[in-house]
């Protein structure tokens, strides 16, 4: 009997950035299981200081190519909170639309390019058997619609342009928005055609309850705005993240881990799905039903399922936002408002595709950043991923090393870790 096992995956593939997976089993018992970030800290929080707020929001999107709009919006919201800028409804709607574009694009990339190869047992999406070429085409069309949303609202997806503190430096025409509507309608159909792939998929059976943390808003399924909400701790203003979330360093890893009340918690698609299920569109709830996902769901392997439901929601919501933006009353509003920097601190929180993201800046009276603190979704999820591994491995401990390793890869990938983000930001206490 092989009672000793060692699983080591260096530079896990099909995730953002470099991370290593390790699990050690001795005498049939789990000794250690971890996912370590293997990238040098980028110290963004240090060098953002000394730059003015316009440069800060420009640089902030470069923290991560895949959630560039989220970082940009979090930085903008933090600056606007500091300077007391109140934006128009048009600005709010445009930002929310840009956000939905990013969430769709990120989820589609993860679902079809990073996760789907596992479901079909191939090394990459380019290796899918010929009968799935159409799947790839549809997924690409879906992604293109998401990019069109971003192009219309932010010039491009990576990296947004013209999305500024105080609003937008351009103003999309009603005609452009109407064209965009057509593209999004097409994407709704493409998504419908892709859902059955996931219906046939059997998700590994594993449950572990934890605290689910996300933004929550009375207005909508929260991405761009809302209060901080934890399924265990209730609602609180976003500024309270400072005393609620504690971060600590872990030997051997350059990313910090985060806990609330000393316990790990989950952020991201599944946390949002659990916390805000009631606000999902009807179509999104139907997709969830179809693929066997119901709230609350405590199976982390089903994070991609929640991403699929959210994709359906974001498409519906985008159509709704476009219709609002075309209304004459909203069309008439200015796409930007004046900004007057003051010496102050501000916090901006948004739901990035991978979870709650906080930007926290202090500016001097000229609007130059003097202090920055960023809390990133993946860093918050690392403790949860570790707790899942601890709970999951004993269930499959008899499996051969290869199978066990593959299962752990799938679990880690399900979290959609974004290492680029997590190492860009390290708080200096």
């Amino acid at each position, binding site marked *: 009997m092989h009672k000793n096992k060692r699983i080591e995956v260096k*530079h896990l*593939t*099909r995730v*953002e*950035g*470099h991370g290593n997976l390790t699990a050690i089993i001795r005498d049939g018992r789990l000794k250690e299981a971890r996912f370590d970030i*293997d*990238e*040098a*800290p*980028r*110290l*963004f929080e*240090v*060098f953002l200081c*000394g*730059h*003015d707020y*316009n*440069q800060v929001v*420009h*640089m902030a999107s*470069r*923290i*991560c*190519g*895949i959630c*560039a709009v989220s970082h940009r919006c979090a930085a903008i919201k933090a600056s606007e909170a500091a300077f007391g800028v109140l934006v128009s409804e048009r600005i709010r709607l445009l930002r929310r639309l840009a956000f939905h574009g990013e969430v769709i694009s990120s989820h589609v*990339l993860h679902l079809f*390019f990073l996760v789907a*190869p596992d479901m079909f047992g191939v*090394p*990459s*999406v*380019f*290796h899918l058997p010929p009968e799935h070429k159409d799947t790839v*085409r549809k997924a*690409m069309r879906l*992604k*293109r619609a998401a*990019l069109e949303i971003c192009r219309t609202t932010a*010039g*491009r*997806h*990576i*990296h947004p*342009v*013209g999305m500024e503190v105080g609003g*937008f*430096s*351009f103003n999309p025409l009603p005609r452009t928005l109407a064209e965009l509507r057509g593209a999004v309608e097409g994407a709704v159909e493409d998504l419908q055609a892709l859902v059955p792939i996931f219906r046939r998929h059997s998700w590994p059976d594993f449950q572990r309850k934890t605290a689910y943390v996300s933004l929550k808003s009375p207005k909508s399924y929260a991405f761009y705005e809302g209060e901080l909400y934890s399924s265990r701790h209730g609602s609180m203003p976003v500024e309270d993240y400072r005393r609620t979330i504690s971060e600590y*360093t872990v030997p051997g890893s*350059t990313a910090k881990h985060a806990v609330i009340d000393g316990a790990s918690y989950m952020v991201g698609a599944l946390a949002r799905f659990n916390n805000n299920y009631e606000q999902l569109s009807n179509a999104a709830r139907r997709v969830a039903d179809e693929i066997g996902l119901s709230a609350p769901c405590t199976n982390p392997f089903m994070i991609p399922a929640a991403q699929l439901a959210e994709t359906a929601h974001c498409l519906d919501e985008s159509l709704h936002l476009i219709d609002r933006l075309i209304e004459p009353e909203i069309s008439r509003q200015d796409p930007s408002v004046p900004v007057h920097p003051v010496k102050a601190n501000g916090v901006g929180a948004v739901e990035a595709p991978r979870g709650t993201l906080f930007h926290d800046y202090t500016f001097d009276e*000229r609007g130059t950043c003097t202090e920055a603190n960023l809390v990133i979704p993946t860093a918050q999820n690392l403790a949860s991923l570790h707790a899942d591994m601890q709970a999951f491995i004993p269930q499959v401990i008899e499996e051969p090393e290869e199978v066990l390793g593959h299962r752990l890869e799938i679990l880690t990938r399900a979290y959609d870790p974004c290492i*680029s983000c997590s*190492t*860009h930001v*390290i708080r*200096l*206490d």
Partner: protein
Amino acid sequence: MRRSEKKRIAFFDFACCEGCQLAVLELEETLLDLLSHTDIAAWREVMTGDEPPYDVAFCEGSICTRADEERLLRVRRDAKILVALGTCAAIGCHNNLRNRIDTREALEKVYGKAARGMDVTEARPVSAVVDTDYRILGCPVSLPEFIAVFKAILTDQPYRLPNEPVCVECKLTDTLCVYEKGRVCLGPLTRCGCGAICTRFGDVCHGCRGLVDEANLAAMPRVFSREHLHAIMGAVASGQPLDEERIRQMIALYNNYPELKIEDRGDA
């Protein structure tokens, strides 16, 4: 082309936002077309597996650790052609700004004693560590330039970077100059090739494609001074005063790796 003649290509990412790779994926069908003329030997972001040697290695990001450096040197040995993909790799992007602070000291503040063993070096563009055969600029890479370079490589041709400022593309696209709105733009110093994407949306150019060859940095503070702008544009640049230090700070968002001479920033 017979299968055996296909070029073996690989993508590698070092410290960065991975936006350049993601931008390349946005090429969708065009990318599938380009890839159909090649075999993919390694692409960690989207594929499991790595089979050197490579005919072409696209490298994205900056080199921030000894491990990065070793990996890059290994890729260089295994690749006939090495392409710096994007500004991080070709010129240097925000990552390098950390070279101005004492990184060790900063890390010790965060990690305490554990920082001592940490593998952290100066942050450098790929092009400062190994010879590059082609460079594709932009943060993220300009996709038309990516396609042009890809085709040049497939047909064994050289590629020359354009050497006009972004202003030229503003004129070609009928874009209102942002100086008219009293904003300060680095377009006059910056190498075009992005189609003036930022200024077309009313934003300013932050200089992500690097400086044109022989950019006259010394003349910048005078040309961009409040008085001069006022005289030529009739608009007053808002924000902070445009002294030399401020202009250098603006340029340094992207053009910040000192060991690269300005004339090195351009052609492959």
